[in-house]
Each structure stands twice: as structure tokens, then as C-alpha cells.
């Protein structure tokens, strides 16, 4: 009933899709983390306007559906700004910002729950806010945030499948394409699901391992 030759015959397309999926995962994770850190720090400042802007950012991206945000970024935003945005750029921007909203919350919580005594000790030595953040707070916060950050990154990878609606040729898009000319959606979509499981089950396992390691 299963005809797996469909998969082996189109392995190059699937590999190409996998490469695209991994590429978008890495790029949007790095950008998302960097922006998320900025947003987290913004929320933690004592300057009300900046902390509110950070809060607003998080609320926006945690409450708008990703699919809506993606389609809006590609189809609506260029009209608003009267510019051309490639689907790649729209996809990277939309996914990174969306991830940043979630990363920001993880980072903010990690920084805030760190024992206030650590900040006290750093400041008592004469460190500036920046030095205390860089040397004392963030290294500890990051360490304990590895598990939730890993979890969010796994979600980020799964979210890249939504890029296929912008016709970015990721794994899911390639699956649709292969299915369209082989008429074997069963094998194709099963294979794509399996590829995700093969990558993400060990990743999840590793994340849990890091969690127990850090206790």
C-alpha cells in the first residue's frame, strides 16, 4: 500500500526543503533571540516609556496568530509602506519578530527570578549596570533558561512550516509539490512528519537533559 520509492525518487527535493527549513530555523532563532533580549531588557528598564514599548511588543506577538501575521507581513505590509518585500525577507522578519516575543518573555522571567543578592553583590563591587548584566546576571540567567529557550526553538522550527503559504520552498512546501505530481500525499506527508520527528525528538531529549544537568 505504501510506495516508498516516491520518497527515494524525490529525495533531492526533500533534502532541499530540509535545508531551507533548517536555514530559516537558525536565522530566525538567532535574530529572534537578539531582538528578544533587547525587548526583555527594555521591559526591565525603569524608564516607563521604554518598558511599556517592550510590554506592548510582547503582547502583540503573543496574541496575533502567526499565520495571520505572516500573510499580513507579505501581502499587506508592502502595500502600507509602498515597498517591495521578497517572500524570504518577509518570512524571516515575521518569524523572527514572532519568536522574539516569546524569547523576550523567557529571558525577562529568567533575569527577574535571579536572586536579587547577585545584583547586590555585583553592584557592591562597583560594577555598572552593564557590567553586572554581562558578567553576573546574563551568564546565570542564560544557563537556567537553556531548557525553555530550547523548547521555544523547537516550536520555532515547527513554525517554519507556515512559510510554505508564502511559497517559500521549505519541507512542507516541497511535500505539497511532490504530492501534486505523484498523487501520493500519504507517503509524502508521512515522510515529512517522520523527518520532523527524527530531528525534534533527539532535540527535545537533549533539552531535557540540559535541564537536569543544570539543576
Amino acid at each position, binding site marked *: 500500500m505504501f510506495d516508498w520509492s516516491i520518497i527515494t525518487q524525490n529525495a533531492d527535493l526533500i533534502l532541499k526543503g530540509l535545508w531551507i527549513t533548517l536555514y530559516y530555523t537558525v536565522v530566525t532563532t538567532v535574530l529572534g533571540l537578539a531582538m528578544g533580549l533587547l525587548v526583555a531588557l527594555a521591559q526591565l528598564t525603569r524608564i516607563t516609556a521604554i518598558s511599556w514599548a517592550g510590554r506592548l511588543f510582547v503582547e502583540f506577538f503573543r496574541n496575533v496568530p502567526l499565520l495571520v501575521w505572516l500573510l499580513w507581513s507579505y501581502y499587506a505590509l508592502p502595500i502600507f509602506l509602498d515597498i517591495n518585500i521578497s517572500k524570504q525577507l518577509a518570512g524571516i522578519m515575521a518569524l523572527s519578530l514572532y519568536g522574539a516575543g516569546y524569547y523576550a518573555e523567557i529571558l525577562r522571567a529568567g533575569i527577574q527570578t535571579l*536572586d536579587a543578592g*547577585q545584583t*547586590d*553583590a555585583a553592584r*557592591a*563591587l*562597583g*560594577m*555598572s549596570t552593564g557590567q553586572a548584566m554581562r*558578567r553576573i546576571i546574563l551568564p546565570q540567567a542564560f544557563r537556567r533558561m537553556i531548557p525553555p529557550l530550547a523548547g521555544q526553538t523547537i516550536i520555532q522550527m515547527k513554525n517554519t512550516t507556515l512559510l510554505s503559504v508564502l511559497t517559500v520552498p521549505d519541507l512542507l512546501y516541497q511535500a505539497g509539490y511532490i504530492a501534486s505530481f505523484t498523487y501520493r500525499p500519504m507517503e509524502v506527508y508521512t515522510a515529512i512528519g517522520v523527518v520532523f520527528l527524527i530531528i525534534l525528538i533527539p532535540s527535545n531529549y537533549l533539552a531535557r537533559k540540559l535541564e537536569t544537568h543544570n539543576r
Partner: protein
Amino acid sequence: MNTPDTSRENPLVSIRGLSKAYAAHTVLREIDLDVHEGEVVALLGSSGSGKTTLLRCVNLLEKPDRGRIEISGQAIFNQSAGGDDKAGIKQKQVNTLRSRVGMVFQHFNLFPHMTVLGNVMEGPRIVLKEDGAINRKRAMEYLEKVGMADFADRMPHRLSGGQKQRVSIARALNMRPEVMLFDEPTSALDPELVGEVLSTMITLAKEGMTMLVVTHELGFALEVADRVVFLDQGTIEAEGPPADVLLHPTNERVQSFVNRFHATAELMRPLLQD
């Protein structure tokens, strides 16, 4: 320990009219306090009396509402009643001041992601931008002094409370502070570990270190301090040589404070006789 030169015109730490409130609750009222070079001052009082807040105000970990604080004649906080002026004191100056004031915390607050040596070297390295080799050599000397040199490569979580506190003393000393602040340094320790920390502090006092110590150890106050300051509800109720204040208290509140310790001792007596 030493004979402090109380006649000096310029105290190392000078506090005038210091007040602090959290919302409607006043923690400190118009505190005046001087600490002279080489002097050991014990801050006593029941919990909630404001002694820890006062100590934390000295290096501005806690921001007072008004008053004036000087370290070695240099104002680091100056705010008159109702005024909004801070005498133009910048955060950078506050950081510099803090680097000259050592602090030891009740819960040690060692940096858990660094080794013992890393903890001790961190301040001079980051704040004073000091050369690594010189810093390392002196850090090891201070670890030697507190009896922790053999533990230089350990991570803090593998130390006992007493060991952690001795490392935190070395960490503060490595900045070569002009004055050391101790915030209940033995309160979080198991009773059998209190001695090793107190003996480190006694060594420092003997060497002439200027120390301001918030403590519940009446014995330490009596034996080591040059002066005790007794706080109650945010005001200084009594101040003077330890024997005068603690052994012959004239102040009613000091009396009841000291009596509580006697009462505990009385309670324990029958238990100890078994």
C-alpha cells in the same frame, strides 16, 4: 581592638540626617552616625529596627529619601528635605565609591558560575581593569588569609556556609576597600560554622580595618567592637562603648533587647545541665 581616634575631624564614613521610608512605613529617621578610620562599629537592634537598611544605605544599595552621606569627605548622597537636588552626583561616581566600600552579605551572594578564585578576582578584573597576574597573586593572598587558598578552584556550591562567607570576605578585601560593611554575616550559618567567620573578622579588626557590622552576635559586639550603636524603630536609641551600652544599659529598649538574650540563656540552662 584599636584605639580609634574619635577626636579626628574627618570620619571615614559620615552620615547626617539620613531618612528612609517605604510607602507609609518609616524605616530610618534622621540618623547621624560617624565611623572613624580603624574603628569597628557594631549595629545592633531587633529585626525591623532599620539596621540592615542603614548599612545598605552606606553604599547606596538602598537609596535614602534624604540626608547626607560622605565617604572620606566625599559626598556620595546629598539630598535636603523635600528637595530634588542630588548635588549632581553621577552613577559613575556612585560606582567608584562602591568599589572603595567592601560588603559582606548575610547569604554570601557568591557568584555561582565562577570558581572561588574567579569570585575573588572578579571585582578588580572588571571594575579596576587590573592586570590578571597581579590580581591573581593578591587574590590568592587574601584566600590564604581567610584560610580558603586550598579551595581556589572549587565552585561555590561545593562549600559549606562558613567557607562561602570567608570567600565572600576575601572577594570584598581584594578590592582593597577603605571600609568593610557586614550585613549579619553569621546569621545564615549553622552554629558550628559561626566561629570560623567571626575569627576571620576579628583578624581584620586587629589589623585595623574599618568595619561597620550589623550583627546579632552580642559576644562579638562586646569583645570586638569599639562602639555599639543600638537602633530601634529607625532611630539610634543608644550609642557608646560596648560594655557601657550592653552590660549596664540605661536605655529601656536596650535593656529589654539584652534581657531577651539573657532569657534565652536562662531557658537553655536546665537543658544544658542534663
